[in-house]
């Protein structure tokens, strides 16, 4: 069973306090922010590895992003993936979810035959959950979103989808795409042997020229979405603590509430 996992490198949430938006370009200031594998994508990798352990086959991880996304791919190799591909080109910059899913789809076409395509349910930075569905459409394959359990029998896949207050059981014929939630498994840590051997494995890098793409569908040009403004929300003003004798504090409180037209 050949599985392709799409992973995105995202800023480490533990570093969120240090993440800033450049007000002129409306983009994240990503330099010096540590990158991690999008947490749901780690679940997708884990699920792929478990399926491979049960059914054999190969696990290929793919990421679209800047050169430093190689680190995320190396971690996936260390966890046990067989092959890693980075789709990277300056002409991909500014891609929205439509252009991202198109570019990824063209990369996956180049990989060739696969049985299952696994993604995280959403990226913790972009948060749209659109890349999975977009990708399935570009590749004309069925999709199962928010899968919390997956079983493969022959060429059938049966999955439980997490809904708001229920779950849905669906059955689909392979090849298909699934996006997974964190309930599906607990991702493994890479082993030291995996870590050391991943260092010696090569990460393939494919640019725009390596893929057969319609240039009008990639990067800024292929992105109908326009970001009007991105900004760091102002922290809410600090609360004020009134101290002193209770009757006097109560008077001051009423005064302040009047000032703000709350009373």
């Amino acid at each position: 069973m050949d599985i392709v996992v799409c992973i995105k490198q995202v800023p480490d949430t533990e570093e969120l306090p240090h993440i800033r938006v450049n007000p002129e370009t409306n983009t994240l200031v990503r330099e010096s922010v540590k990158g991690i594998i999008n947490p749901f994508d780690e679940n997708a990798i884990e699920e792929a590895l478990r399926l491979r352990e049960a059914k054999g086959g190969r696990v290929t991880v793919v990421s679209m992003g800047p050169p430093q996304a190689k680190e995320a791919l190396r971690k996936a190799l260390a966890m046990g993936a067989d092959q890693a591909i980075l789709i990277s080109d300056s002409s991909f910059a500014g891609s929205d979810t439509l252009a991202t899913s198109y570019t990824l789809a063209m990369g996956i076409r180049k990989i060739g035959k696969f049985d299952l395509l696994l993604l995280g349910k959403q990226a913790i930075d972009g948060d749209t959950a659109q890349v999975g569905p977009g990708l399935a459409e570009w590749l004309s394959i069925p999709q199962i979103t928010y899968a919390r359990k997956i079983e493969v029998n022959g060429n059938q896949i049966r999955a439980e989808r997490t809904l708001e207050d229920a779950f849905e059981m669906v059955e689909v014929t392979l090849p298909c795409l699934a996006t997974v939630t964190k309930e599906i498994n607990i991702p493994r840590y890479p082993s030291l042997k995996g870590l050391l051997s991943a260092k010696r494995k090569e990460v393939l890098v494919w640019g725009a020229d390596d893929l057969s793409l319609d240039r009008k569908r990639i990067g800024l040009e292929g992105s109908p979405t326009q970001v009007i403004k991105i900004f760091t929300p102002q922290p809410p003003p600090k609360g004020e603590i009134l101290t002193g004798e209770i009757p006097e504090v109560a008077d001051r409180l009423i005064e302040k509430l009047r000032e703000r037209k709350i009373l």
Partner: protein
Amino acid sequence: MDFTLSDDQRMILELVDEVCEKEFAPKADEISESGEFPSQNVKKLAELDLFGITVPREYGGLGMGYLTWTLIAEKISKACATTGLIFGANLLCTYPLGKYGTEEQKRKFLPPLASGQSLGAFALTEPEAGSDAGNVQTTARKEDGHFVLSGTKIFITNGEVADIYVVIANIDKKSGARGLTAFMVEKGTQGFSFGQHFSKMGLTALPNVELIFNDCRIPDSNLLFKERRGFKVAMRTFAAGRIGVGIGALGVAEAAFEKARVYSRERVQFGRTISSFQAVQHMLADMATKIEAARYLLYRAAWYLDRGEAFEKLASMGKLYASEAAMEITTKAVQVFGGYGYTKDYPVERYMREAKLFEIIEGTSEIQRGIIASLVLKEK
């Protein structure tokens, strides 16, 4: 002397940090309270290949040396001393096997120990043989291509959870320590069973058990090194093991210091944080200094061991210094916490109970001073 870390070491330590922080540290209190063997932690160590750090590649390990092992053990012990000691006891099995084992023994025992599929233990101590390690009463009788072991070991770390044991027994009691011989014994061998569990003041989840050998027959091929060379095997193993015990103590000291440092900046008395009082500052300064001093003694010992230089004196010094520093630092940490430190609401009282062990095992502080003195007096 150069302790610059390689990229591989840095990468490994980063991963170990993550596992310690997410998996081991949050469970340390619970493990100590319940006294239940932390099998999940051991499984994690195995999955990460950590048991194989020093085992050569051809026997399924990573062949990375003792300094790397030491740096890893420091982090594990800081997060959870119990897990650190389990990790350390395994080394007492892989080390003598690697050094003295036959090709056949290494091929049989090292791969499962390196993968963590089997856990190791080292058994010397007996009721009559503690500091006086030469006074082992367990006997090994030769009988048609076998050795037959009889006797009792006490306090053995990894007790009944281990699978592979290095056991010291006497093949010729008349010769005293010169009759001592080391053997490999596998769990499940007929005549080998477990007795009493020792109930302890700390490290309650660390298995320390009596091993009972009752006409336990093991094949000739399980003789480790040579007949009558068991005392040497034991002393060499302890020499290396002391780096592990020292680093365990250091991990506990580091954890206690870190808790005290943070607490001192939060606790307010007399309208100021207690970290503003010079008396508290001096305690923290001494703690931090001793931690650094212990660290470099132990790193240097491990580095000498890796380079094949005489490391025994440094290992004894590191073990002695780190364990006594840990006792002092954990006691001071309780002091910084005041009354709260004495309660079970904070982990510092646990660290204090844990620290005490390190002044006792693998040669008490008194025995270490004896070893160090005899080594320095021998120097030209």
